[in-house]
């Protein structure tokens, strides 16, 4: 009588067990990695917009300060996208016949808003406020990157909870004087921590890490 199992069966079984355990483990690990890297989260990919608005030109060349258009960042949870009227404040005079600006003029005339594509989106169960960050010395560039070098804005930070907590637990390397908050090219003179500590003391910075700080 031939043996019920031939000699390779043990190896086959071991292989199968390894697969049964390994595949879920590897896929789980893969998913977790994916959830944390640019590929999974879709950042570092410039987002197309209905109007080819170029921050390189406006923020970079012309040196228009961030707060000129995103003034809400200083006094509201949301930084805000400027109303069409503000675009037309200049573009009624300059480039007022450019075909690229046609949607802007149309919005100005018929009062219907431009529909921009959101680049930095947090989940709905997160409550985030620009106001407190900007008023406590966190610079625009810290989360949004060098917007003045982007043709189309893209997300440069993971915006995950772990990333938020990193700074909330130890904010000193990231703080800057209030005067430099909107300065995209500012670098701390010397040790970043030293500057940060001075700012922390001056602005009374005490970031919180309780769940209810952001989730309610």
């Amino acid at each position, binding site marked *: 009588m031939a043996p019920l199992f031939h000699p390779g069966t043990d190896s086959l079984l071991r292989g199968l067990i390894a697969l049964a355990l390994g595949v879920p483990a590897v896929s789980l690990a893969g998913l977790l990695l994916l959830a944390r890297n640019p590929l999974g989260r879709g950042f570092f990919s410039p987002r197309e917009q209905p109007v080819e608005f170029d921050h390189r030109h406006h923020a970079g060349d012309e040196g228009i300060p961030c707060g000129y258009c995103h003034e809400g960042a200083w006094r509201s949870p949301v930084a805000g996208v400027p109303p069409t009227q503000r675009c037309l404040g200049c573009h009624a005079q300059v480039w007022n016949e450019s075909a690229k600006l046609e949607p802007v003029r149309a919005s100005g005339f018929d009062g219907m808003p431009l529909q921009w*594509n959101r680049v930095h989106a947090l989940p709905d169960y997160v409550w985030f*406020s620009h106001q407190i960050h900007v008023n406590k010395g966190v610079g625009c560039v810290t989360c949004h990157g060098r917007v003045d070098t982007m043709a189309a804005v893209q997300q440069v930070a993971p915006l995950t909870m772990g990333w938020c907590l990193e700074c909330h637990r130890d904010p000193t390397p990231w703080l800057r004087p209030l005067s430099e908050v909107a300065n995209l090219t500012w670098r701390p003179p010397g040790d970043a921590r030293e500057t940060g500590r001075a700012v922390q003391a001056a602005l009374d910075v005490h970031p919180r890490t309780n769940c209810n700080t952001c989730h309610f």
Partner: protein
Amino acid sequence: MPLLTDTFPLPVLQDASVAPAAREPGPVRAWRSLEEWHAGGPGREALLRELPPGAATPPEGLARRTFLQLATASLAAAGFTGCFRQPPEKILPYALPPEGLTPGVPLHFATGMEWNGRTVGLVVESHEGRPTKVEGNPEHPASQGAAGIFEQASLLGLYDAARARTARLQGTEVAWSVLREALAQRATRTDGGAGLRFLVEPTGSPLVQAMFARIQERFPRARFIPFSADLPDGSVEGTTLAYGRPLDVVHDVGRAVVVSLDDDFLSTLKPGQLRAARDFVAARRPEALNRLWVAESTLTLTGAFADERSRMKPSQAVALALALAADVGANTGHAALAGLRPPGTTLGEAQRAWVREAAKDLLAHRGQGRVTVGARQPALVHALAFAVDEALGNAPWLVEPVAQPVGGTEALASLVGELRAGQVDTLVITAWNPVYASAVDSGFAEALALAPFRLYHGLHEDETAALCPAFAPATHPYESWRDGRAPDGTESLLQPLIAPLFPGAVQEVEVLATFAGLESKSPYALLKDLWRERTGASADFESRWEAWLGVGVVPDTRAPRARARLDEAAVVAAARPSAPPSRGLELGLVLDARLYDGRFAGNAWLQELPDPVTKLTWDNAALLSPATARRLGLEKGDVARLELRGQAVEAPVLVLPGQPDDTVTLALGHGRERVGPVGQGVGVNAYRLRHLDAPWGAPGLTVTRTGGHHALALTQEHWSMDGRPLALQLTSGEFQARPLALKSLQEDHERLYPLMPMASDTHQWAMAIDLHRCTGCSACMVACQAENNVPVVGKDGVLKSREMHWLRIDRYFLGDPDDPGVITQPVACVHCEAAPCEYVCPVNATVHSDEGLNQMVYNRCIGTRYCSNNCPYKVRRFNYLEYQQREPLDRLRQNPDVTVRSRGVMEKCTYCVQRIERARLVARSARRDILDGDVRTACQQACPTEAITFGDLLAPASAVKRRHEDPRHYRLLNNLGTRPRTVHLVRLKNPAPKRGP
């Protein structure tokens, strides 16, 4: 299973039972339902369970296997990237930014809401143009910062998808401009308006009154007929009898002795009562209590709050008032009053004693008392109360009538006569739903068809709209320009918060303006012109107008006190031929404590709000006393046939302890037939028993069993804290005799493990709820629902104890079921410092913050419900199904600062942490700390009697700290060692000193 109280007797209760003197033997037993009282009866088993059977059953119609298949399929379809990448979103900035608006920062606008002809000033929060929360206006005399259930819930009515959208003419849909043309044509007439009739709701609005006057001037023979289901108001007829002309009575009950005859002023259901409740409770300081005497024909919140309560049949009020007047008259030298006698055997011994003692108390506090009478009582009772008040030097606060036109049910009767005689060619109805809400014998619904042209202006396509070929959809108050007057006459401007959601909607003023010949002007222009005229076109009108709009009140417009002399002889003369007492069953009709006259029947928040007294949701019921129910062989849920003068309805029975014997009380406002999906066919239409000459009920009712049964969605046994008496009440004598009686409920007991320290030394949040001030009006519940996006679960859900209210109000009866005491106790998450829920969560979804909050993290919650199991206070709520409404209109309403929870997630009171964080943000950005008073929770803000205090225990001299140190404070279930951050304060009673036997 023995009750925990048997194993671990609560120390304070044991003490009370051996307390020396003062008290009748034995502690008063507290209970929530008759089933609980008769322990061992059929409800006993249910009481020992956390949730009723079926609470956790899956939804029907979708088998588990099908559900799993669907779930798997949708997972595959969505793809894994759905787990990480946010779905694409659009940002739509303003094209032209509104002035003064920063996106993300809510604005607040002063406006108001009118019903019962009077206005309550409100402040409405607006997020980028969407009204999201209604709050009281602190500057307005009828609100003083508080807001009742109707004001709060009116927000849901604004976003009601069942609202009427298009105008109709001759039954076909037309644009408003076409309808307006037709109206203008009806207004070009030469007969002086002989066939022109307006059926309107009495209103205090100067603008609408000016329209009335202008139309009257143009058409001298036109008539305005007042109609509202809250008419007739006995006080108007009472002032006519006593003072010779109709006057308004302003409730001023902030007095040392208040005697109420069927006046439920603490329920805060009508404008002016928020103020009355605050005044009354302010005069009830624990150190110097006033005394409330209530005789009432059904159990109400005011009766529950009374120091001395007496049950009476509705018809006995006359006899009580006569006896009171006689007692007071005899002791004040008013011979005419002293000569009054109640007819022979009308009053029982207990009632006579009640009157004697109340009179004695009033006489001992001359000039500091008040006799107040409910609107349902006839003119004579009001007039007698005025006579008593005047005799005692408690002159009532009278003002010339705020609302016009003045009138009762006779006005509608005469209109029906004219309709039948064919004298009316054009009938314009702006009053709310007269076909539904008119008396059954008025014949209005049939006579209406005799008017060739009849226009109805209403918010919904309701019962009246069905009979009117011409229809104009109304704007919601938050979409309209108007003005209004508070009960004390103070004028205010009511501004819109949002453009009409349904563009076809028009305002009442626009309809009237077509008849006034002013159709070319917008309501805004009409309003502004009127006020410019009223101020004599002063040069600084524009700036004053802006100021009025900003504050919501026109300064110095309170009406002067009316000069009126009481005609005692007329009152006494009217009292002579008093009717003999009635025998048998009596019907009492009341305005519903949640739906008012039925206008809020389409409002899901109000439908699901438990009635403050009966704890009934999604229904009305015939209320019977235990003795009467026994006699008639009826039990809770039995369907009975109520027959009065040949008219009958079939209504489920609810046995209500404290209800007077032989009195059946049924609330109006239910049983709507055309109201939209929410209120359709909910409850029983009590208007079918309403008669013109007996608008608030009558004797001669017959009640028979039908054998049917109806499931009543009662919440009184839900979330029971194991039968322990938790709402504590002491008489002031007891409390003063033993101020340390509560010590064991205030101090920590020994514990096995040390407490986890609270890290923050800047803030420690806490709340205190003063039962001494809580009337149980439920304004806090609706405020919480609006602020925190709390969903509604429907009647089936409530029957399974799945209601989602974060804040509930427990109502306990005390003592004898026939005539019990009542106490109400708001309970929300008490934020235990040693929270039992936190130990058992397997995923750390509920954890403690350094500032003492018990945090609930929705995105971590996997729905095991262990926390709810382990919560001794039963304050956690689970989303068994996807309850949240995600229709576009519903999404507009929701508070953007609060996460909208989905199925399978636990939730509970957060101490309005979104308000804490908003306040923190503003304060810290300005480089300061949150100050005491910066954060007010929604429930605290709405409370008319300031029963709820919230704040920081570390702030020196904060209000909440004071209450936490008050000798009356106690911790709920202190023996469990949970150290709750919300403490309750004992309610004190001030019963009249008992005389000898």
